[in-house]
């Protein structure tokens, strides 16, 4: 299925969990936060959260700013 990660289309297995997606991208831990369809998905829910086709996933981190 196709999902959108940080604005880019990507093919992922049907029903992949957020935790599995992050593992495949080699990101995770306390340094990243994740939104799906404009709603934050808390870290504790990543293992059970299943993605659906066309989901818009945003993976963010802290960067320098004023």
């Amino acid at each position, binding site marked *: 299925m196709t999902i959108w*990660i*940080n*604005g880019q289309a990507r093919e992922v297995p049907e029903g992949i969990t957020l935790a599995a997606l992050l593992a495949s*991208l*080699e*990101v995770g831990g*306390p*340094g*990243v*936060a*994740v*939104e799906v369809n*404009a709603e*934050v998905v*808390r*870290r504790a829910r990543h293992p059970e959260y299943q993605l659906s086709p066309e989901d818009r996933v*945003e*993976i*963010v*981190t*802290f*960067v*320098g*700013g*004023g």
Partner: protein
Amino acid sequence: MSVQDKPLVISGVTFQSRLIVGTGKYPSHEVMKRCHEASGAEMVTVAVRRLDLAAKGEASLMSWIDRSRMRLLPNTALCYTADDAVRTCRLAEELGMSKWVKLEVLGDEKTLYPDVEETLKAARVLVKEGFTVLPYTSDDPITARKLEDVGCAAVMPLAAPIGSGLGIRNPHNIRLIRETVKVPVIVDAGVGTASDAAIAMELGVDAVLMNTAIAGAKDPVRMARAMKLAIEAGREAFLSGRIPRKAYASASSPLEGLVE
């Protein structure tokens, strides 16, 4: 005799330093860390952005921030709607494990002036969700009062446009804001050099937030120290009670006893 200064308290948290600094635009993370140390600041702003998925294993910003002494203040920089700002704050909470945010909702790319209507809208939502909201705002005392009324923990009027280094363009309004609200007033944006920071503090504001003035200086670490000293000097001068301005001279030495 001398007025004992009280430390800055924002939403129940005490700060010894009245300088808040940013984490953007430094020549390197290492220079940033040294600037943070030299500034004496106890709170730093950070921004929330998409993770660069291609840049795996790069040393993150966070490893260069001493969180044992620095409180994080995530911002909503470059958000143009209340909804985007609220979303960013929720992400920041997940990232920083804290509900403190610098709310910044801008109105236009040229001036980066705050959209106070959207800022108020976002502030209402965030306060309701339990966030400690420090809003960047215009130097307008009425907006400052409204932000206080909706429950913001401080108000942060601009001195001049973000990154402009133009200094305190409207000292009268900054003073009016200090008189109008009870929450801490933090001058945010527009400071260019140490005297600007001192002038802000002499007006009686509680703290100053800056980024570019330090990060963009030729010697950022030295400027960070200059800002620390200026903040302290300005605060001391404010507490001292300056002499009134007079139109004519008034001799400092005795008028009597001149040799003839």
